[in-house]
């Protein structure tokens, strides 16, 4: 890495300067919409997923507001059923699946590998447009009243309801292809585009996480496509596949659906773990302890992700022996998850720790993922799961993993890489205020849900018994604090774009490769082809020039 020069070569006359920064090298809307630059595609994804996150967040706030009081608060039952479904669909398919891989992965995977771009830049742009096309179908469905099936589309409900299931399912089906193509692209890029000296044992853990995620995307997403396709066939042609009235089997749908959707939750969390590894290393100025174990644990999670779908069916009438096998396999997930947590905490030991805002998100991730993981063990334990299944305990568990984990990882990454992506610094004080609100708001919202869940409150309930009122109200107030935190964060980032100070090359003093290129990076990422001489976390080998700000 020492050989990465930061001086600019003389620009050629008459052509866009390859060393000009990627944001200003070419101008105009068309230059963005037709760009093959992975960084610009990454930013377009970033803008799209942030819009989706805002939309899904508004739906979440509406759900919580309705649950402020038993009975009707602001909407009727059918509206509520649509809103919670849209919250799930938007957050899962439009936001969280593409969030870290497609937005930050696109931007940083090639740079971290020392490459000029991904292996197939045109395919990369195509993935983005397929995502947009799929999102349009989802929007079309929403504008016409949306769906009321829950994001899981369980049959026979989803074949009987007269809401707009088909366009929504078609949207998810199309977005699946975007996910597959991005996965293929990343796998090829990791294999073929590494700079000289970028050995597998020097790959950043973010890359390992994206690599594991890509494998899951390529292998699991086709099953979702097949399942949703069968659902459409059943609705259109009346061929009995899942509907018992037509001779189908409704539980078969659940098997198919979770065969994708369980790996999908690992598609969501593993990239977040990759971000956290980067953050812990940079802000402790220390190599991640047990690097290879952490890397392999991502692949371990990817593998186990395929073997545990059955735990979603423990009360669906599955045989006791199947339940036993799926319970045992689900417990195994704790091992690679634990390996990551232990190694992150061990990395802090004898580090040089800075508590800048990205690090705060990483530390909160560790705390919340630990809770999310351990409550997952409650649900893996058959005896307890029978009671907790489909209650708010499950809602709280997966929000601790998906929000407390992935969303915190995503925003930690956004704070971390923001100066590199936009070349601007942000107001650290505001960032920390936003963090405090998000952290407190999140934990208040979902801690209350664990308790009402174990006390028996079922999920997806418009109305509830008076004994649950207090917990619902605590949770709703938490959602307001959380929402406020995100508003402060939004203001902070807008302020940075409008009037942020110019960021130096390496504001965090990191020795990772992406911090050795200018902020924002030039079109070709590297002014001279990089030669990698040490790993991304080898602070003891880094030169003073690498760790310097400029």
């Amino acid at each position, binding site marked *: 890495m020492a050989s990465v020069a930061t001086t600019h070569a003389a620009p050629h006359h008459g052509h866009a300067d390859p060393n000009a920064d990627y944001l200003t090298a070419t101008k105009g809307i068309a230059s963005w919409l037709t760009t093959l630059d992975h960084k610009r595609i990454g930013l377009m994804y970033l803008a799209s997923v942030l819009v989706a996150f805002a939309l899904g967040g508004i739906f979440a706030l509406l759900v919580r507001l309705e649950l402020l009081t038993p009975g009707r608060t602001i909407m009727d039952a*059918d509206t509520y*059923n649509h809103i919670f479904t849209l919250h799930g669909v938007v957050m899962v398919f439009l936001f969280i699946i593409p969030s870290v891989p497609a937005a930050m992965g696109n931007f940083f995977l090639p740079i971290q590998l020392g490459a000029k771009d991904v292996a197939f830049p045109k395919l990369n742009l195509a993935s983005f447009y397929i995502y947009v096309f799929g999102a349009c179908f989802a929007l079309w469905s929403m504008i016409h009243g949306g769906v*009321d*099936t829950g994001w899981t589309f*369980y049959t*026979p*409900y989803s074949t*009987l309801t007269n809401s707009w299931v088909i366009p929504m399912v078609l949207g998810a089906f199309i977005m699946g292809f975007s996910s597959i193509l991005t996965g293929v692209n990343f796998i090829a890029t990791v294999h073929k585009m590494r700079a000289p000296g970028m050995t597998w044992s020097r790959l950043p853990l973010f890359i390992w996480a994206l690599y594991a995620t890509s494998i899951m995307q390529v292998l699991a997403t086709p099953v979702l496509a097949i399942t949703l396709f069968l659902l459409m066939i059943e609705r259109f042609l009346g061929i009995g596949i899942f509907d*018992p009235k037509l001779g189908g*089997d*409704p539980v078969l749908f659940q098997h198919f659906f979770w065969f994708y959707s369980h790996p999908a939750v690992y598609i969501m969390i593993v990239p977040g773990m990759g971000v956290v590894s980067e953050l812990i290393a940079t802000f402790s*100025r220390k190599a991640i*302890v*047990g*690097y290879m174990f952490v890397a392999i644990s991502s692949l371990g999670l990817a593998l186990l992700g395929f073997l545990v779908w059955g735990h979603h069916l423990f*009360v669906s*009438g599955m045989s*006791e022996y199947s339940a036993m096998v799926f*319970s045992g396999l689900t417990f195994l997930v704790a*091992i690679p998850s*634990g*390996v990551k947590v*232990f*190694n992150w905490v*061990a990395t*802090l*030991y*004898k*580090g*040089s*720790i800075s508590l800048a805002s990205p690090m705060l998100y990483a*530390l909160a991730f*560790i*705390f919340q993922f*630990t*809770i999310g993981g351990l*409550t997952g*063990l409650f649900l*893996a*334990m*058959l*005896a*307890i*799961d*029978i*009671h907790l*299944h*489909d*209650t708010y305990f499950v809602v709280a568990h997966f929000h601790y993993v998906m929000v407390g984990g992935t969303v915190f990882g995503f925003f930690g990454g956004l704070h971390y890489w923001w100066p590199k992506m936009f070349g601007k610094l942000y107001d650290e004080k505001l960032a920390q205020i936003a963090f405090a609100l998000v952290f407190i708001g999140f934990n208040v919202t979902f801690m209350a849900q664990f*308790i009402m869940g*174990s006390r*028996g409150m*079922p*999920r*997806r309930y418009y*109305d*509830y*018994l008076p004994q649950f009122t207090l917990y619902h109200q605590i949770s709703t107030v938490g959602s307001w604090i959380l929402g406020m935190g995100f508003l402060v964060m939004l203001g902070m980032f807008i302020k940075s774009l409008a009037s942020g100070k110019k960021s130096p090359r390496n504001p965090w003093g990191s020795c990772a490769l992406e911090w050795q290129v200018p902020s924002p990076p030039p079109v070709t990422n590297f002014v001279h082809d990089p030669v990698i001489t040490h790993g991304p976390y080898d602070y*003891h080998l*880094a030169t003073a020039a690498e760790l310097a700000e400029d």
Partner: protein
Amino acid sequence: MLAILNLDPPTTTFQLPAAFSAAASDVDDIYYAMYWFSLVFTVVITGALLWFIFKYKRKVGDKLEPPGNVTILEITWTVIPVLFIVVLFHVGFKGYVNQAVPYENALEIRVRGTRWKWEFEYPNGMRENGELRLPVNRPVKLILSSDDVIHSFFVPGLRLKKDAVPGMYSSLSFLPNQTGDAQVFCAEYCGTSHSAMLATIHIVSQEAFDDYVKAGPQKPDGLTDAQWGEKLFLQNNCNTCHSRDGSKSPGPTFLHLNGRDEMMGTPAGMSIKIDDNYLHESIQKPQAKIVMGFTSVQMPQFSLSEKQIDALIAYLKTL
């Protein structure tokens, strides 16, 4: 179970509702063992994290440490959790099998889930919606099915849950060991009134149970017909489809029902003035005459005695 650890929480605790069976109390022991395990683990991890960020806060001139050789550490924190999860898996599976094995000579009750009510059928053929009476200290087997979409029969007080799936039977087996009322929820999302698909299990003495099953549901002392009708209206979950305040609902609203003129969708074009005979027919044969605009909704059959129907009609006329 786990008695050696002396973890015997009272039946109602902060995290769990009152338990109505010994097996449910066993589940609670497992739950609390898991809870304390998790709490200790979280405190240790978070404590270490906070200690390190305090102790190794960045200072000028920090020496940047190379990564040490940690293979032994890695093996340790892989193997020890494996041992833990083997124990947890074993305990969890044992508790599950304990609840899953059906009792011999159990009292068999048929349970049918329909949007949006639970119907119970006793061995003598008597049927009732929304309320089930069971004798204490006698094993019970519920045989579940669904008439439309998937429902899930959830009794927090028994720590039991099972999906009612259209096209197949599933069952739940338990031995209630104390009297009282256990709440029943539908736990699998089933549409508009999913959250109102509730029922109550009254666990009563054997004598009270025998009397009830023999005589069938009777008007409670001191209630007028209309008052009993209101109880039946709620117990049978009529409110999940018919609003009483004129607001939109899956079925026609019951506000100002009596004497109203309605156009029928089935048979099409027929006009009817709503009276006792129409109401009686509609309760017994819901598909006979359906108000226009509601023909796509399938009202389920209700098995009610003549006395109950009289009481219901008396109540409906007060709205």
